[in-house]
């Protein structure tokens, strides 16, 4: 876990006021994008559009990105979030189709997804393989398993009589998926920002040598981090088939790049350029809003990809440049 994504932090010149100023750039950019689309994109600021954006685009990516936040906070990365998501979705669909109820299918899915995390934890904490290569290996093995179980990548549909409508359930008028995101964000966010484990994760991620010499149980922390990441993805793996009524092999990988992007966008929002859960959620929202707005002003899906690429690149450039300028 000594590989750290945090940039070296040379002494800053600008001091606290400069840092505070830099910190304002991202929110300003976010506000500007929102304002631009509110004015320019027809139908952007309608309840229908915004709620569909939240429910259809935000929820799944947010859940995966919250898990990714832990992996990156600890100085690693989790390339196998898609594997955990897919395993969970596959198990959920198979259990429901086999006639088990939700009370079996949901824990079953969560367990299957978390197994990917347990496997990562064994590789990273047990065999001390770097998170990048370990999760890459898990990704390969995971896609092998899925291809074998799905006849080379055929979707498995939920049979009509077991479709639960779970994803359109509401509690006190709030859609269940949004409540789940809120709950997950609350638990993961509070633990990372206020909990003992959170502090240990951040030390391990930003100052691996300090973590080592102060005798932190690095392996235990790393194992917990990757299980936590996989558990979040497993939750998304329950919601995805509950929404589209099918398991599509290897569909989880689609979230990988955007989840990483969102975490780093989120980091630019924090005073110390630290990854954090609320920032990640804003990062996800930023990506969603941009894609949705571009769509509404008539850009097709292909140009949205380019724009997203440019956006993530500029945010990263900004984040790392400001860290060098403003880091103290």
């Amino acid at each position, binding site marked *: 876990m*000594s*590989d*750290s*994504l945090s*940039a070296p932090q040379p002494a800053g010149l600008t001091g606290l006021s400069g840092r505070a100023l830099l910190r304002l750039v991202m929110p300003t950019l976010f506000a500007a994008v929102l304002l631009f689309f509110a004015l320019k994109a027809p139908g952007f600021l309608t309840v229908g559009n915004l709620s569909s954006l939240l429910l259809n685009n935000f929820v799944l990516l947010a859940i995966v990105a919250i898990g990714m936040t832990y992996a990156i906070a600890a100085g690693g*990365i989790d390339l196998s979030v898609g594997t955990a998501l897919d395993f969970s979705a596959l198990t959920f669909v198979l259990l429901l189709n086999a006639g088990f109820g939700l009370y079996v299918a949901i824990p079953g899915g969560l367990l299957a997804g978390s197994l990917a995390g347990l496997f990562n934890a064994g*590789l990273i904490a047990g*065999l*001390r*393989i*770097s998170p*990048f*290569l*370990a999760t*890459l*290996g*898990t*990704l*390969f*093995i*995971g*896609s*092998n*398993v899925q*291809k*074998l179980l799905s006849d*080379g990548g055929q979707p498995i549909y939920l049979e009509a009589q077991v479709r639960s409508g779970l994803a359109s359930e509401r509690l006190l008028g709030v859609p269940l998926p949004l409540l789940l995101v809120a709950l997950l964000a609350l638990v993961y966010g509070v633990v990372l920002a206020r909990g003992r484990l959170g502090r240990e994760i951040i030390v391990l991620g930003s100052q691996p040598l300090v973590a*080592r010499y102060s005798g932190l149980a690095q392996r235990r922390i790393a194992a917990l981090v990757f299980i936590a990441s996989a558990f979040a993805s497993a939750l998304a793996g329950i919601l995805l088939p509950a929404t589209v009524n099918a398991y599509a092999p290897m569909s989880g990988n689609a979230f990988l*790049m955007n989840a*990483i*992007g969102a975490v*780093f966008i989120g980091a630019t929002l924090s005073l110390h350029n630290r990854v954090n859960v609320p920032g990640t959620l804003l990062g996800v929202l930023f990506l969603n809003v941009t894609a949705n707005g571009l769509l509404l002003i008539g850009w097709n*899906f*292909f*140009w*949205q*990809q*380019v*724009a*997203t*690429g*440019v956006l*993530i*690149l500029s945010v*990263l*450039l900004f984040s*790392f*440049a400001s860290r*060098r300028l403003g880091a103290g």
Partner: protein
Amino acid sequence: MPMPLLSDAFHPRFAQWLLRRGALLAFAAILLAFALSAPNFLTPSNLVNVLAQSAILGSLAFGLTTVIIGGGSNVVSGGLDLSLAANLGLSAAVYASLNNAGFGDVVSIAATLGTGLAIGTLNALVVVGFRLPPLLATLATMNLVAGLELVLTENTVLPSTSPLLEGLAFGSWLGVPALAWVLLAVGGVLIVLMQYTPFGLRLYAIGEYPEAANAAGLSVRGYVFASYLISGLCGSLAAFCSAAWFSGSTTGSGEMLLSVVAIAFLGVIFSQRLQPSIGGTLLATMLVGVLINGFQLLNISSFWVDGVQGVLILLVVALSGLRNKEA
């Protein structure tokens, strides 16, 4: 970065022997197993076909290896180029569209190579100029390049033929298909460049001991910049192979990325000193090619290739203790 050759868990001499020779022994065992079980495996024509089929992945993996040599093999802070597969996709699309639009060979080929070089330059600027970790930088350029490919092709296959593509796809010399020659030629040139020229030796020095290289007066940033240019160029060379193999540009080239990463890191075990090397990568490419081919001949589902690659890479890294610098 200095890396211990051994993990403490193994008896040093046995582990050393196993690590240095084990990879080749395992490769030989796999060859033997296929030779015994699949009757057509050990025919010259099948073996050169394996080489030809490996040309696309191999060229990409050479590019990645070059970047890893120059940046060091630490996955996060060292060299990495995740944009290679997207580079292939865009370069092939550029070639196919220009060729189909009636531009001559010179223009199409130059533009294709230019595309690869431009992507390499962008990566180099972001990594060397802005000092972004290569993992993140090339992840972002990968998105950008893949988006440009989508814009250009609207996510469709662009069929294309030209004498160049036909020559690559169907030509052969001394009984060896043209694509196999491309793989060997690109590999050969890069082996010479990396192992036998001052450039290559300095690139190794910079990758392993950047501070020492800097103190010795080497332009660390210049060499790293060059390594990303070479990688970009490899992407467009692979694009020619891919365009020849599929008779045009195809969609979904991004799916090759993880195989390329796996091959480049597998290549490390084929090197005597457990370092990234072009020769090692060539062997790893052939190993993966042999696995795919052998599985086909034995009628084993190709799905298993993924899993075997995954297990191999984990095995390699765990055994070599490559990442245990501080453990």
